[in-house]
Structure formats: structure tokens, C-alpha cells
């Protein structure tokens, strides 16, 4: 069995030898021209004049294109695949992100006004600088909490409001009653900071038009290449069968690389106009500005407890920033992934949430690792932490009293979602033991007496992963079918190519999909190759996002392989003159049960293509495709516990320890699983302690435009991690596997913020807005000191 083993990754050697093939590495027979973009320096402005004449005459320039050219060419904009739906179910106040400014209005810093295509990078940049644009600056709206204030400028005046939509979920009357009757009510304002994925590979695109065959090709840093074709049907009006999308090695995505970005459409447009392949490789500063941002919620929460700390009800009111436009998957957060997770790992009888989505003059917000769930867990867990502290109940003990007991699974939450399996109390016991919790509390008391500020943070949560089945996700708003696809092709020599609609950009599918296929096919893992990321080679795919690839594409591999085996068994049985049921397949051989009669898989594969001697109703060939629609989402769960030390002088936070105990169901490769958890944790740690896409409240200027100001964790900012697991099987897929890609990011911000709050509670600090930078912690302590005087 390969499944369950820490098989070393088959993709690693090419990366380790510097032979990865990323979009920037692609070479073609024709010289590739370079694109450069003229971007708005203003957050909100009218464009009154664009003069390209001087730029167009500069050396090496092939084209200078503007929004007027785009409109004249009849091009459009990419449609959302997860459009907004109001409470009524109606799609509401949609303004999709344009690829290039076409209506003379700039709505966020960085919006593209013109594109220059030139022979080389320097010429393109020189000419972009020579494009003359006149802006008439307008007041900007970049503060989410104030987006609906009466004097706030409107991003889309046509709508008459900055409100995109309102959604409500849960049990309103029951929640109000629970809060009214509660022994204790905790209220906290919990904004979730705006962050961005900052994958190490910047976005990059290469467009090519083959005029002879009338075929288009785009090489793209994207996680879902088949969906890219769909976007192009609306932006450049290219039929799906005419466009080949190749997502080669991609250097991290984290959800951020799911979308049809302006530059992706524009380079292909440039290639068509100039009849030359055109490439754009984003600089870090272009990407920190133009990559979708994430989170940006402003939430007020109230949680009611009985005298024993049992949660009676919780109510949330949230403003969720969309940014200047609706990005293609935006509503997956508000309409599917945020509200559904507001019960976390707790048995809460009454929950009610109202979300008002709002436009602001900022970069569009869309999914980033966790997508709505980090916000939800942060919102719930901050209430629980403060409630426990206020009531004087040990925070772990209070949580333990509220965890969903194993006998309640499948557990129906107050929000209408059903968790299929889990055992939160078992996770809590393991967490407590792993961290030696009681000893930590003793140490905390001792250190506090010495003037040292140690805090212990906890978070306990569920995740909704593995988006599917199609119907359920349609009901939650998806206009893409949430299934996935795999083909298993057995070649005449018995070797195998697996084609999958998922896309690995760090997840290690070449290894894990091969583990699944090798077990089902009874073959050596080295006899399997995987193809992903090419729409001309893979039949269809929905891509890798939302911790879904294993329970959809991985299961499609499983299912297609089983179909191959079933067919091969029929042929083998015919060749061996026995019944298919009598055959076992292992180690590359069919064996007749209870005998030593054997026939190699390779011989059967060869016969399937080249022998006329077969059952009359058996088709030639050995290749099967599965379009796998899972029975349910998967519901991984986890509990995190951390120790933070806050420096009483500088107020800097040192994350001393971090433990995570996960329930991800069946594990394919524990090494890969741990890697996913580690990486997710550090992105969550970044959100909690340092990351922020910041805008100047007055001018709307973007303040975190380079890695000099946007802080992502360095190696010395984080500890090594202590991981453990407690597995319950997922019920929605035959492997029993749950998603594992987002758990770390979902639980870490809440855990760390609770830890810092715990460290500073005795000083009167109750809540610090993320990211909890030294500056903010110092200010919170100063404010608390002043308040106590």
C-alpha cells in the first residue's frame, strides 16, 4: 500500500536542480514581446485624457493599447463564477473588475489605464512612462467600517449605495432570546485585517495566437486552467475549444491565483494585436497591489453564556469589503464559506449573522487560503476567549464544556450545515496532553509574578473543505460545477498516465495522486506519470482550491482507476478462462484466487489494444475517465494551542510554541499533510502578527506596496510546530479523506490573538486589532493604563 506512506515527492528533483518550468521560464520559437502597464496612482479619479502618441513612437514599441481600443474591439469583462446573491436570492449590484479602465473612472490604486507592448523589458517600461494620463482626483473610500456612512464617497454611484448586498443566516429570534436571557454577554469588535497571499512566484502570463490554425494559447500562473477558458469566453470572446490554457509549474497560489486578472486577458489581446507572443511578469510591487486581497471584515459580535459558561447564542454583524469591484469568486466567501463556519467546533444552539458586503476604493477582495473561515473562527473564538476571561473560567475548560460531543455526529449546526464526522473532545484531550496545558498555566502564573507576559491561546474549529457536490454548491451560489475529473490511461506496455483536472502548485499531486492510483491499479508507483494544468491534454477540471483536490480529483483518480481495473479484469478473465471475480490484482499481476496462475497487467494492457481475442461486448483500449461528484463537502476539524511571550518593553510578540491537532480523515501522505499544516499555520501567524494591506484613510494611497512594508513571516519569526492527529473518516468519499490545505491558516489567527489577549488581560487589555504589531500592542497597553486611572 502506498496510501498512508510518507513517500518522498516525485516532483522535487526538478525544482531542486533548478529545472522547474514556470511561466517566466517558457521559451518559444518566436521572440516574446514584453508588456508593461500604465496604472493609476490614485484610488479614485476620473481619467480625462490618455495620450499614447509619444509612447507609440518610441524604439521597440509594438503597440500601446487603451480602454478605448478595448471597447472598440468589442471585448468585455470576465463574469463571476460565484456571483453575489442577496437574501432574496437575486444577483445584486454586480460590478465586475474590468481588465482595463473603459469608463474613465478609476476605482482603486493600480487600475490599468494602458498597456505597452515592446520588444524588450526596458523599452516597454520606458514607453509606459511616456504615456500621458490626466487624472482628476476624487475623495476615496478605503475604510471598511465607514463604507456605509452617509458622507462616504460612492464607488459606483449608479447603485446609489456602497452596499453590494445583505445576507442573513441562522436563527434570529432564538439568538435574540438567548442573548436576552444569558447570564453573561460578551461583546467584542473584531475587525479582520486585509491581507494578501503573496505567493513567492509573482503572477505572470504569456499569450500566443496561432493565426494559421486560429488557436490561442495562454500560459498562466493559475490554479484552475479549465476555468480560465470560461473567463475568456466573456473577456476576449474566445470559444473554449479555441483556447489552450497551460498552467505549468506555479509557484504557490493559495486561492489568489484562481482569477482572470486584467493582465491575463490583456497579454493575449496584445498577442493578437501584435501577432507576436507577449509576456508579462509581475513585479512584487505590482502584485502586492494587483493580486486579490483577502479578509477585510469589520464585525461586532455578542455571545451569551449561562452561569456555567455554556454558550447559549451568538450574534454577528459584519461589514465585508469587496474592494472596488466584484472579483470572480468573491461571493464564495460571503455566501458559502463564512457564515457556514460560525459554529466552529461548538454546540451552539442559536447563531445569527448579518453580512453587509460593501464596495470600497481598494483592490478587490477574493478567496485566499481559508476564505471566510479564518474570519469566522476569529470572530467566534475571540468571543469565547473574552467570555471565559470575563467569567473567570479557564479558557480551555470553557471550550471543553461547549465542544460538540462525538455522539452528536452528524452534527447539524444552527446555520444549517451538517458536519459529517468528528470528535472535538478527543482533539481537545490530545491537544491538552501535547501541550502539557496545566504546566503551561503554572508557568504563566510564575512568569507573570516575575513581570513576564506569557499568554496561552486556543482555537477549536471546523472547516468546510472539498467543495462539492455540484448541487449543494450551486445552492450556495456556485456557477461552476464543483466536481472534478481524472482519466487513467493504460498504455499498451502497461505503464500509466493519469490526467487530472486539479492543479498542483506545491501540494505534491505527482506523488499523492500516484499513490492512490498505484494502490488501486496494483502497480509500482514509478509506472505512473501525472499530467495536470493543460486544457488540451486533460479533459476537464475545476482546479485546486478550497482543500478540495483530494476529495474530488483524487477521488476521480480512484474511481477511474477502479474502472480500468474492472475492465482489465474482464479481459484478463477472458484470457485466463476464469471469472473476473476470481482474479486478484497486485504487484502488476493478475492471479487466479487460490492458484498460482498469473498473467501480467502489461500483457492484458497489450492485449486490450492489439488482440482481437476479447469478450464480444468489450471495447478496445484501456482508458477510463471519471467525472467525480462527491456526496458531500468534507469537514476537517482541528484544535490549536500556542504560547506567546510579549516583551514588556518593546511589546513585540515572540511565538514560543505552537501545537495543532488535526482531524483530516484518511491520510494519503503524512509528510505532505504536515507540510500543508506547517505552511498554513505560518500564513495564519502572518495574518495575526504582521501582515496588512494598508491604505491611507484620507488619500486612499496604498501603503504596503513592497516587501519593505508588507511583512510576511521570516524563518526566525516562527517556531517549529508540534503536530498530532485524531482521525475520523469522512463519509462523503470512499477514501474517507478530508481536506487539509487550509486548516493551519483558519485556526492560527484566532489562536494567536487569544494568546496575546491572555498575556495582557491582567493589564486591562481586551482586544487588539490584527495584525497585532508591537506598535498596536504598546498602544493598547497605554490605553488600558489610562482607562484604569
Amino acid at each position: 500500500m502506498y496510501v498512508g506512506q510518507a513517500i518522498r515527492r516525485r516532483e522535487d528533483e526538478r525544482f531542486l536542480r533548478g529545472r522547474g518550468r514556470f511561466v517566466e521560464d517558457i521559451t518559444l520559437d518566436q521572440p516574446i514581446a514584453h508588456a508593461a502597464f500604465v496604472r493609476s496612482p490614485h484610488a479614485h479619479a476620473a481619467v480625462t485624457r490618455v495620450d499614447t502618441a509619444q509612447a507609440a513612437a518610441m524604439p521597440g514599441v509594438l503597440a500601446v493599447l487603451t480602454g478605448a481600443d478595448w471597447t472598440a474591439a468589442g471585448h468585455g469583462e470576465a463574469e463571476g463564477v460565484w456571483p453575489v446573491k442577496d437574501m432574496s436570492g437575486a444577483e445584486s449590484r454586480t460590478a465586475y473588475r474590468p481588465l482595463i479602465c473603459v469608463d474613465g473612472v478609476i476605482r482603486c490604486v493600480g487600475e490599468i489605464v494602458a498597456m505597452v507592448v515592446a520588444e524588450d523589458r526596458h523599452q516597454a517600461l520606458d514607453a509606459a512612462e511616456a504615456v500621458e494620463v490626466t487624472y482628476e482626483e476624487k475623495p476615496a473610500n478605503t475604510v471598511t467600517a465607514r463604507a456605509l456612512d452617509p458622507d462616504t464617497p460612492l464607488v459606483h454611484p449608479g447603485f446609489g449605495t456602497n452596499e453590494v448586498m445583505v445576507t442573513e443566516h441562522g436563527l434570529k429570534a432564538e439568538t435574540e432570546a438567548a442573548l436576552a436571557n444569558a447570564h453573561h454577554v460578551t461583546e467584542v469588535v473584531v475587525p479582520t485585517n486585509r491581507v494578501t497571499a503573496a505567493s513567492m512566484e509573482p503572477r505572470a502570463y504569456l499569450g500566443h495566437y496561432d493565426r494559421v490554425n486560429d488557436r490561442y494559447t495562454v500560459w498562466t500562473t493559475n490554479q484552475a486552467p479549465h476555468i480560465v477558458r470560461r473567463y475568456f469566453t466573456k473577456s476576449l470572446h474566445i470559444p473554449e475549444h479555441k483556447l489552450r490554457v497551460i498552467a505549468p509549474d506555479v509557484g504557490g497560489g493559495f486561492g489568489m491565483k484562481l482569477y482572470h486578472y486584467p493582465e491575463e486577458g490583456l497579454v493575449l489581446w496584445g498577442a493578437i494585436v501584435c501577432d507576436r507572443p507577449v509576456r508579462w511578469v509581475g513585479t512584487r510591487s505590482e502584485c502586492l497591489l494587483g493580486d486579490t486581497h483577502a479578509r477585510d471584515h469589520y464585525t461586532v459580535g455578542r455571545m451569551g453564556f449561562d452561569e456555567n459558561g455554556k454558550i447559549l447564542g451568538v450574534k454577528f454583524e459584519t461589514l465585508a469589503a469587496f474592494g472596488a469591484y466584484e472579483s470572480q469568486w468573491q461571493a464564495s466567501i460571503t455566501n458559502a464559506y463564512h457564515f457556514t463556519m460560525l459554529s466552529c467546533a461548538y454546540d451552539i444552539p442559536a447563531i445569527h449573522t448579518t453580512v453587509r458586503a460593501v464596495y470600497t476604493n481598494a483592490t478587490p477582495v477574493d478567496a485566499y487560503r481559508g476564505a471566510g473561515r479564518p474570519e469566522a473562527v476569529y470572530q467566534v473564538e475571540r468571543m469565547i476567549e473574552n467570555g471565559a476571561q470575563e467569567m473567570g473560567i479557564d479558557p480551555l475548560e470553557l471550550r471543553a464544556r461547549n465542544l460538540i460531543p462525538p455522539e452528536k455526529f452528524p452534527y447539524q449546526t444552527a446555520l444549517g450545515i451538517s458536519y459529517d464526522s468528528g470528535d472535538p473532545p478527543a482533539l481537545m484531550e490530545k491537544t491538552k496532553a501535547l501541550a502539557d496545558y496545566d504546566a503551561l498555566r503554572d508557568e504563566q502564573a510564575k512568569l507573570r509574578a516575575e513581570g513576564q507576559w506569557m499568554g496561552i491561546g486556543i482555537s477549536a474549529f471546523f472547516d468546510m473543505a472539498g467543495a462539492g457536490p455540484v448541487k449543494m454548491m450551486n445552492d450556495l451560489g456556485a456557477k461552476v460545477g464543483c466536481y472534478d475529473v481524472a482519466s487513467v490511461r493504460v498504455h499498451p506496455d502497461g505503464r500509466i498516465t493519469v490526467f487530472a483536472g486539479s492543479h498542483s502548485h506545491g501540494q505534491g499531486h505527482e506523488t499523492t495522486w500516484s499513490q492512490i492510483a498505484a494502490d488501486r491499479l496494483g502497480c509500482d508507483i514509478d509506472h505512473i506519470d501525472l499530467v495536470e494544468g493543460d486544457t488540451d491534454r486533460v479533459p476537464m477540471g475545476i482546479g485546486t482550491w478550497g482543500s478540495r483536490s483530494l476529495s474530488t480529483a483524487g477521488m476521480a483518480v480512484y474511481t477511474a482507476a477502479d474502472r480500468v481495473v474492472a475492465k482489465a479484469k474482464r479481459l484478463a478473465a477472458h484470457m485466463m478462462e476464469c471469472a473476473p471475480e476470481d482474479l486478484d490484482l497486485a504487484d502488476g499481476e493478475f492471479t487466479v484466487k487460490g492458484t498460482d496462475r498469473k498473467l501480467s497487467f502489461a500483457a492484458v494492457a497489450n492485449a486490450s489494444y492489439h488482440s482481437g481475442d476479447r469478450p464480444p461486448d468489450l471495447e478496445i483500449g484501456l482508458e477510463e475517465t471519471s467525472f467525480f461528484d462527491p456526496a458531500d463537502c468534507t469537514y476537517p476539524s482541528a484544535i490549536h494551542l500556542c504560547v506567546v511571550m510579549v516583551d514588556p518593553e518593546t511589546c513585540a510578540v515572540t511565538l514560543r510554541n505552537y501545537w495543532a491537532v488535526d482531524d483530516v480523515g484518511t491520510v494519503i501522505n503524512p509528510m505532505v499533510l504536515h507540510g500543508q499544516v506547517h505552511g498554513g499555520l505560518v500564513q495564519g501567524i502572518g495574518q495575526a502578527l504582521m501582515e496588512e494591506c494598508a491604505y491611507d484613510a484620507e488619500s486612499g494611497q496604498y501603503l504596503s506596496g513592497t516587501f519593505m512594508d508588507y511583512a510576511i513571516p521570516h524563518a526566525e519569526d516562527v517556531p517549529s510546530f508540534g503536530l498530532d492527529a485524531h482521525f475520523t473518516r469522512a463519509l462523503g468519499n470512499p477514501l474517507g479523506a478530508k481536506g487539509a490545505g487550509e486548516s493551519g491558516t483558519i485556526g492560527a489567527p484566532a489562536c494567536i490573538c487569544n494568546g496575546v489577549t491572555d498575556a495582557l488581560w491582567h493589564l486591562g487589555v481586551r482586544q487588539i486589532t490584527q495584525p497585532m504589531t508591537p506598535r498596536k500592542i504598546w498602544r493598547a497597553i497605554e490605553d488600558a493604563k489610562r482607562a484604569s486611572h
Partner: protein
Amino acid sequence: MDGVSVNFTVNGREVTATVDPRTLLVHFLREHLKLTGTHIGCDTSQCGACTVHLDGKPAKSCALLAVQLEGAEVTTIEGIAGPDGMHPMQAAFKEHHGLQCGFCTPGMVMMGIDIANRHEAPDEATIRSELEGNLCRCTGYHNIVASIAAGASASRRREASG
């Protein structure tokens, strides 16, 4: 602007070229020499994906002009494996799952080799501190730290044995 001629060594091979003085070393490696293993992850010399060895010491090839390399010896990720297989540091990254998407990896490996060169048996704190100039967004660093510790120890064993 007139091209400037420059002669230096890359992975043991002599390179002679006439380049636009604006050409960064990383662009020269990637575009002129087609050594695309060295990556560009930022524009402020923070991320370290472009780390190469310049005269035996790690340097960020995005903050050097190719024309500055006259007479220098440059080693890139493509130049460290031996005829018998990967460098022990490369092998350690594979064994300890020190990479996911692979984009920061060349810089991390080049830095790992340098850490091993300068520290007898680097502990976790040393490795984390020495990685100040290299960013990774996938691994959470846990397994990179483990890989470099193991790679350093394997490199020493290889030296000791011959």
C-alpha cells in the same frame, strides 16, 4: 546605451558577453544563459529567491549588475549537483520535504549550502537567523530548517569520507 563586455565564470564555465549595463545578474543568468533556476520573487532584495554564490559567498543576483561580475565566479542552483547525483543539501531538501511549490527553493538551497559552509553543526536558532534574507510562503520553514540541518550534517559526512 552601449553594451559593455564582461567575462566571468558561471558554474565553472567561462562566459563572455556584451550586455546593456542595466542588465541585472539575475536577468543575465535567466535570459542570456538560460539558467532559469534562479528566480525573482521581489523587487527590493528581500526574498532571496535569486540567491547565487558569488566568489563562494551567497549574494542576491537581483541587486548586482551583470557588468559588475568581471572576473568573478558565480555558482547557481544548476551548478551544485555532482555527476553522481544531487548535492547533499539538495538531497536533504527532498528527504525532509523542504519544498512545496519549488519557487524559493533554489535560493534556500544555495543559502543552506552557505550555512553548512560556515557552521559546524548549525542548530535551529542559527539556521532560522541565517535565513533572514530568504522568504518562503509554502512550507512554514519547519521542514526547510530540518532540511538544512540534515544537509549540513550530510555535507560534513561527505567531506569526512573523502
